[in-house]
């Protein structure tokens, strides 16, 4: 199907180009319409229309069997905002971000500093450090499902050998979210490493040289030269990791299905179960609107850094 669409576009274009010189203004406008048409049509159908529809669906309450729905105005939004389930889901998502973002950032920064050296064979290390960027959420989750397994998992083996109690990582309500977070930190490490290393590489060498001449030691140079120069990159990474945390779904679906006792029921997982398991479309839509508003704020912050990178970056 899509190949047909693509072919139509490329066939349709030369005609417009051939007549381009006759009346530049009108032809240029027509050409712009043809070039932008496919993207505009796709964004309208699969981003803007469904966004409006999500707001709209939030006004309708489904009956318990998902067979019909009635207009209830803002009632459902208010109910969702007041419900314990939604509060807990929001809290879980926030905790998940708190567990994954700072840890991921510190580890990514550490790896990037380690790999930002002129050493033989450093390329091999950089490839290894980047490797989890290519790992899908499903692959990473299944790997960690095995590592975290109470009977065969290597993590419990390590704990027992070091004299600690074994932990039922995914079955214990207190440990499930940390376990899912551990998987997520590993999964995101490649991305964080790549972004921070790229940031490090844009810091001019002369700054370090002159700081050295001024007698600054390695630690002082890290805090007074590297980190301030790196701050836009670090903020960018924080925002992207936070947005990722709020959109996480796959690791929850494979590792815990939101359990035990809803302790890993993050916002997107809750939207999924309400919308596709409980057939509460309206509730799922209202939660979707909440997710949209949260990500919107985070994205607006991100655009400010994106803009800076585009205009002043390398």
């Amino acid at each position, binding site marked *: *199907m899509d190949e047909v669409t693509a072919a139509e576009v490329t066939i349709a274009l030369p005609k417009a180009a051939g007549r381009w010189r006759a009346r530049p203004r009108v032809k240029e406008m027509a050409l712009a319409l043809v070039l932008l048409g496919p993207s*505009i049509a796709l964004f309208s159908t699969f981003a803007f229309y469904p966004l409006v529809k999500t707001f709209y669906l939030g006004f309708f309450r489904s009956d318990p069997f998902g067979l019909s729905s009635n207009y209830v105005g803002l009632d459902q939004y208010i109910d969702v905002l007041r419900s314990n389930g939604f509060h807990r889901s929001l809290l879980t998502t926030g905790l998940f971000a708190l567990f994954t973002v700072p840890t991921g950032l510190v580890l990514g920064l550490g790896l990037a500093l380690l790999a930002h050296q002129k*050493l033989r064979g450093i390329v091999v290390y950089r490839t290894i450090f980047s490797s989890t960027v*290519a790992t*899908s959420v499903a692959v990473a989750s*299944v790997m960690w499902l095995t590592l975290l397994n109470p009977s065969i998992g290597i993590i419990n083996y390590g704990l027992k050998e070091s004299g600690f109690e074994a932990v039922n990582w995914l079955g214990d309500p207190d440990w499930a979210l940390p376990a899912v977070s551990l998987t997520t930190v590993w999964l995101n490490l490649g991305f964080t490493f790549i972004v921070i290393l790229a940031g490090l590489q844009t810091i001019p060498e002369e700054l370090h040289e002159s700081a050295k001449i001024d007698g600054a030691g390695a630690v002082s140079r890290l805090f007074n030269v590297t980190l301030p120069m790196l701050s836009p990159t670090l903020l960018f990474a924080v925002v992207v990791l936070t947005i*990722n945390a709020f959109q996480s779904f796959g690791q929850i679906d494979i590792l815990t299905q939101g359990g035990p006792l809803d302790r890993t029921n993050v916002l997107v997982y809750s939207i999924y179960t309400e919308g596709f398991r409980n057939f509460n479309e309206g509730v799922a839509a209202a939660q979707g609107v909440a997710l949209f508003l949260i990500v919107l704020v985070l994205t607006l912050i991100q655009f400010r850094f994106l803009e800076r990178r585009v205009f002043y970056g390398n």
Partner: protein
Amino acid sequence: MATSARPARKRPIRIGRLLGEAAQYAALTIAAAIILTPIYITVVYSLQPVEEIFSYPPNLLVTDPQWDTYKRAFETGSLGRYLVNSFIVATAITAGQVITSVLAAYAFAFLRFPFRNLLFVAFLASLMVPWEVTIIPNYQTISTFGWLDSYQGLIVPFLATAFGTFLLRQAFLTVPRDLRDAAAMDGYGHIGFMLQVVVPLSRAAVGALAVFSFLLAWNQYLWPLLITNDDDYRTVQIGLKALVSSNIDEFNLVMAGTVIAAAPILALLILFQKQLIRGLTSGAIKG
């Protein structure tokens, strides 16, 4: 005096540097080992017999590789079919995204038309709509089209990308204006100029977009989970989940499936690392 003092002063520095380098290599190697542990254990378990995986203490070496497990993963888990589906879907999405982004980016970079800035902002705004927010109406749309359990349903919603358009527009803007005039004098229209001058000059950015699009498409999880129930259209990510659910105690089989699902994209990373890094560092969101 001066000449004999020099080597004496230099030697400790050299030893210090060597020690420093050794410490750096040690730290790098330990970090690499920790990061690779999950992958290593996955490969080891995929080659061990199940009884050995359950033995205590665990054996972390492969003494007698069971290649047969991989054959079984392909057969009982229909992973071959899932891999083909993933290739079809990821390739089509990549091709589609590159085409729509080249066209749109060219319009934004080289054409004058009304509402250009407004449209550009609209493209930006599409980035603010997370896919997870719109799954319910999008599911309804795909269902109305009759595209549940189909390649179209997996591919068409992702054929355009605002991120790709921005990435390419940035690259296209660096193409010198003079080239446009020269090409016009040589009788090139916009399409000729785009395909024969702009795209070849921006091939690094186009390559970055292609690798990045393929990676995201290959790794998709939520959408394929929602719209495919049929083995004929499941992607490898969803197939892996199905393999885990139905063979939870056969860790060797599950691990072999994991290696099969991960291998193509890890190969892609090693082959196209430079393009991927460029894509990621241009302000992309993984997920």
